[in-house]
């Protein structure tokens, strides 16, 4: 039979385990967990900038295309004070080519042209996003940027490339991201361009901001 002492200790242990589990689960939802740094080709601006922005985005999503323009505008104005990390969050169930686009963009990044390739993907989104077969545009954009296409195709299927994207997706899931684009601006969530610009309007009040 369990002694009274052991029963008391077991109750205390159960209480500690319960409370700590709830605390960690709540901390996940409040985005208190660490955020993995994006690879260098997907991170822009000074690392120690006063404004840290993480964007979870999908190349096939129209709202993300719109937000990409706003983000570029913000980087032009606050480039010295913003560190921007691009994270992939392809919505696999509704966008058949967004995972491919993400992989190709990363592979373009490995050849030093992530930003240029990403810009082409967003600008011409309507041409390829809902294609029935693999869009030829992926190759066209690569060639127009003078990228090594055979190297890009090999890279896009490499486990390392897919792993990196899967980790971005898993990280977004744990942070409760369920719409694109979702931004975390100094830890504060913003969904879509409107909320991004609303928070950006307050940048001027932050210490250490330079235009």
């Amino acid at each position, binding site marked *: 039979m369990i002694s009274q002492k052991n029963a008391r200790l077991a109750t*205390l242990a159960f209480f500690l385990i319960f409370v700590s589990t709830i605390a960690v689960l709540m901390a996940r939802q409040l985005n208190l967990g*660490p955020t*993995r740094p994006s690879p260098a080709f997907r991170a822009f601006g000074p690392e120690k900038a006063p404004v840290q922005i993480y964007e979870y985005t999908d190349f096939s999503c129209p709202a993300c295309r719109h937000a990409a323009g706003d983000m570029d505008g913000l980087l032009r104005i606050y480039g010295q004070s913003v560190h921007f990390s691009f994270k992939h969050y392809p919505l696999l169930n509704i966008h058949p080519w967004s995972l491919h686009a993400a992989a190709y963009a990363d592979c373009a990044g490995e050849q030093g042209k992530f930003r240029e390739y990403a810009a082409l993907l967003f600008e011409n989104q309507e041409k390829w996003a809902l294609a029935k077969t693999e869009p030829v545009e992926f190759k066209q954009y690569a060639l127009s940027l003078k990228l090594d296409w055979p190297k890009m195709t090999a890279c896009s299927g490499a486990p390392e490339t897919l792993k990196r994207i899967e980790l971005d997706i*898993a*990280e977004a899931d744990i942070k409760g991201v369920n719409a694109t684009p979702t931004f975390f601006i100094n830890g504060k969530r913003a969904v879509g361009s409107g909320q991004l610009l609303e928070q950006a309007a307050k940048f001027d009040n932050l210490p250490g901001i330079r235009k």
Partner: protein
Amino acid sequence: MNGRTGIKGTAGLLARLAVAGVFIYAGVTKALAPAEEFGYAIEGYRVLSPHLSLVAAHLVPWLELYTGLLLAAGIFTRLSAAFAAAMLILFEALLGQAWLRHLPITSCGCFGSSGSNSITREFLQNLVLLALAAAAFRRGGAFSADHAADKK
């Protein structure tokens, strides 16, 4: 101070709190991050399949957190310290085989993506923690819930 007074009791208490602190930190940092991240780190040791690595990645952070909390509070202190030591021995075995097989692991995954050590550093750190866990097992009863429950 209670029952186990003196230098040895204090050393046991400090050892218990040190092991508890490391376990809580390691557990929380990994529990707050996606399990897939730790799962990939485990896969790198080439002992478990990807599926089992992910299962382990879901379980281990919580086990570390709970063990750390029980140790910190001194609940079933000897059992908690023994369990912590068992986990450390398992980690050492994984690190040791990776080192012997020259596996290309640059980060052990022990503290999530934000702060992992190299295999060698982690192996040495775990040896120290193992010694501390042994001290906590032998003399970690001071200021513990176990001791408080004994008094009632």
